[in-house]
């Protein structure tokens, strides 16, 4: 909705570069913090792939977690059961996710709007049921499917190497960011943006909406799977939560929080969401909520509570999320000059 003027478009990349160097300073030295940021980067990337659907193409999917999980489980499975190395396992996982996305997308895109959202929800729930209940022995059920430590290079293993995981996650985010940038600036990307506004109008130009939506759906799915593969390395496992509707809903929250269809908005939303939800829990243990009465202190110790309240406020009072708020601020400043 709000496009950064060209002079600012490299800013997010510069920040990523700074974040990369940051890992070598005392500022982000502690492994716990590095791990938090690594997960945050991955969710920033994942949110961006979701925004490719929601923001740039106008497709409200409730099943995006399926592809993230397909990537994670595909890779973890190939490593654990077939003793494959991370690279072939990753390629296998991407190919698997590609097929899943192609199949589910072809089916789901036959319907539109809420029906589309519900069909994607159904497919993702089906995936969730498969991994949770360990149907056909594909997963470890409720338990997590552990990373096979023999499949990844040593410099990604152990607490001492958390910095390498941090950098791996950051590079993943940068790759996703550049890919989404490249895609949205392409001829096809413009058709996506047009589709988001008015599908009929696109079809009277002689373009088949279905094909273009399917391309977006599959690409976003494969990119989410890529994040899933890296997540297995970073978090050492694939688990059923990855496939849950809750995961897709948190992606939705991240994108809306940061600002829809702005690229960096989704990334910021993902970062804030993960850092807050991991760090807010420490509020409670550090006694910051000690003075509060129980009826308000109890919920306040749940990160999701504060995140949810922030989310509601953003939707109600700041359309366009953080990016939208910044944009309005800039307009205001410009009008003073």
């Amino acid at each position, binding site marked *: 909705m709000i496009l950064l003027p060209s002079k600012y478009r490299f800013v997010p990349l510069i920040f990523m570069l700074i974040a990369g160097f940051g890992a070598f300073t005392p500022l982000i030295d502690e492994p716990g913090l590095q791990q938090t940021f690594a997960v945050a980067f991955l969710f920033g990337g994942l949110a961006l792939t979701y925004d490719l659907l929601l923001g740039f193409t106008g497709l*409200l999917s409730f099943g995006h977690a399926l592809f993230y999980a397909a990537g994670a489980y595909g890779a973890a499975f190939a490593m654990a059961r077939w003793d494959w190395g991370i690279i072939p396992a990753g390629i296998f996982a991407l190919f698997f996710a590609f097929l899943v996305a192609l199949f589910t997308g072809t*089916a*789901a895109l*036959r*319907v539109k*709007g*809420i*029906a589309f*959202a*519900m*069909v994607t*929800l*159904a*497919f993702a*729930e*089906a995936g969730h*049921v*498969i991994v*949770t*209940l360990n*149907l056909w022995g594909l997963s470890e059920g409720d338990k997590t499917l552990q990373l096979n430590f023999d499949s990844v290079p040593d410099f990604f293993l152990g607490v001492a190497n958390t910095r390498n995981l941090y950098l791996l996650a950051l590079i993943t985010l940068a790759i996703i960011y550049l890919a989404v940038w490249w895609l949205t600036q392409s001829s096809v990307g413009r058709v996506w943006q047009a589709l988001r506004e008015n599908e009929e109008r696109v079809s009277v130009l002689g373009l088949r909406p279905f094909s273009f939506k399917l391309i977006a759906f599959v690409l976003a799915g494969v990119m989410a799977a890529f994040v899933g593969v890296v997540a297995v390395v970073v978090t050492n496992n694939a688990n059923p939560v990855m496939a849950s*509707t809750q995961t897709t*809903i948190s992606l*939705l*929250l991240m994108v*809306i929080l940061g600002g829809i269809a702005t690229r960096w908005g989704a990334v910021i939303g993902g970062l804030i969401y993960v850092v807050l939800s991991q760090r807010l829990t420490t509020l409670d243990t550090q006694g910051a909520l000690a003075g509060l009465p129980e*009826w308000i*202190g*109890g*919920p*306040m*110790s*749940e*990160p*999701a*509570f504060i*995140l*949810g*309240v922030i*989310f*509601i406020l953003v*939707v*109600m009072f700041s*359309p366009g999320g953080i990016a939208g708020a910044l944009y309005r601020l800039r307009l205001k400043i410009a009008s003073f000059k």
Partner: protein
Amino acid sequence: MEIFITLFITGVGLGALYFLVASGLSLIYGLMGVLNFAHGAFLTAGAYAAWYFTTEVRADGSLTSYAISLVLSGLVGAIFAVATEQLLIKHLYDRHIDQALVTVGLGLVAVSAYLGWFGSDPLIALPPTQLYDVVQIGDAFVGIDRFLYITVAGLVLLANFLMLRYTRIGLVIRAGVENRAMVTALGIDVRKAFTFVFFIGGFAAGLGGALATTYASGVGPTLGDAFLIYAFITVVIGGMGSIPGTAIAAVIVGTTQVLVNYYVQGLGDFVVVLLLAVVLLTRPQGLLGKVAH
């Protein structure tokens, strides 16, 4: 055969619970175009109210206390729902996506509030022991509570039917589901109807919460969300805005789930979500829904 009867009635009982959640969802969506993700939170609120009343206020385990707790939980759900409509939804008039998003946020907030207040472990409720008796049908044994769910859902269905057919506000709702723009153009204030569908939807969900507490022998923070997904599936299969469609779909979903799950644990959930996909892909408007223009 006996086992089939037992499972079938259990399935219809579960479907009855789905219907209690789904009927409100369906009317709210049909009339206002709002996909209400906070509906599960209404159910959980009712469930906690029922738990509190039957364990803290009148813990005598009598049928009377249980009956009062049902009404009470319905009211709690209704008040929660009306507050949601008045404080959040109303201010986002005609911003359907934002309305749905706000309910997503509210659902999240509610679950974590329950978590903060009541903890993550399910609280055990103590419904009257008579509910856990079994009756014999042919050679099959069926829990009495199943019939309670079905009766309550049947009454709600009947009440919905009478309200939609014979009251003025019901007329407005039916017309609004059919064509909202037209009703507004006629100068009828639909907003009262908006508040009203939230009231009855919340009441049914709260009632469902009390019964779900009996069904699941307790209440945890995510009780409502567990039901919400299947209630969504029910609504969509039945056709958005159609109460009879919702009722039929609730029975289909409940029985399919229970029957298939009996043979392969978990496969029932899988079959139900695939059923949704199949119905939507072959008949996007659902079983009895109106074709969207």
